[in-house]
């Protein structure tokens, strides 16, 4: 096909329950307005949504999966960041 490629957008929706916007998928659109309309038609047909974000896929800066070890390794040894690291006497009960 010789047709011009239509830019790709990533779609994020915030559900009614007030949680943060969550990535739901992507779509093609020539501009932001069309991206929003298409996102509404494709990803929110069941009344589950409060708000939509669309972002040009090309604008997303992502960490390199090849470097994930270097990137995330420092947290592995810091088990004291988790609540279960700390002991609370049984008599005290739930904390």
């Amino acid at each position, binding site marked *: *096909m010789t*047709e*011009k*490629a*239509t830019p*790709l957008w990533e779609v994020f929706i915030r559900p009614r329950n007030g949680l943060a916007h969550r990535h*739901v*998928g*992507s*779509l*093609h659109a*020539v*501009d932001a307005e*069309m991206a929003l309309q298409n996102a509404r*038609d*494709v*990803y929110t*047909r*069941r009344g589950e949504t409060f708000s939509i974000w669309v972002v040009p896929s090309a604008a997303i800066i*992502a960490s*390199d*999966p*090849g470097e994930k070890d270097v990137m995330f390794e420092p947290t592995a040894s810091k088990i004291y960041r988790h609540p279960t690291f700390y002991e609370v006497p049984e008599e005290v009960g739930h904390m």
Partner: protein
Amino acid sequence: MYAQALNAKDLTPVRAEDPEKLAAFQARIDAEEKIEPNDWMPEQYRRTLIRQISQHAHSEIIGMQPEGNWVTRAPTLKRKAQLLAKIQDEGGHGLYLYAAAETLGVSREELYGQLLSGKAKYSSIFNYPTLNYADMGAIGWLVDGAAIMNQIALCRCSYGPYARAMILICKEESFHQRQGYEIMVAMCRGSKEQRQMAQDALDRFWWPAMMMFGPHDSDSPHSELSMKWKIKRFSNDGLRQKFFDATVPQAQYLGLTIPDPKLKHNKKTGHWDHSEIDWDEFVRVINGDGPCNRQRMKHRRQVEAEGAWVREALHAHAAKKAARKAA
């Protein structure tokens, strides 16, 4: 299922992979890790997925046609709205799937071109005509039922974007089968003529629906690798048997006769035994000689050509707006 035609020979030579990378990849699969778009993957994993996901997407898009045939003639406004909602879902599901395929480095335009040129296949089921309104019931009940059984299994596919698309699709599609069965119930409780229409629809769609699961495992040369890489989790025959067992009692409840004289409950295995599928018919339909193959493709190409000016105008409008903003 929607990737029945994967059995067609892939003539591209298989590239030798780095054994170390391949082993690390297999270890990730075995550990149930999801493979994501930028991760290393064997070329054949990528190719199999592109073929499978795009065949699945094409099936959703072509699958809108047999149902579209009855939108204007649905018996009530309620039935019309339901049918429209279902067809809309299918368009959306096609989009989710194309998007998942695109993460593997192929453009939607390219995939679409493969469908229009006839190079890519879609599910054989959509090459059967919808002759009476009861077919809307039979399709929802049997075709969507078979599709859901397959798609639930695919929710655990090793490729992240495909698995996530499947989860979304399964969530939306659960109404499709119920919608179809409700039509069957209404018709079977109706007049004698309506019951005959329901029986006629079952007679025509029963075997084509069973063919949706693809050839026997023994005739499915790509299955083994797909299972090893967890693209596929269950065998064709296993899923088909599961579908038989679930569907026979539903037909009995409707008081309809399944068009298979050999259908019998096997007390020993607990499963339903059935006749052999007409595999000649299956091969014929997959390879382009079903009752509606030409019609489906002709329609798709016509719609694509007629919409070209809209896409062109959209690009022109976006360019004009961008230029105005820049000025």
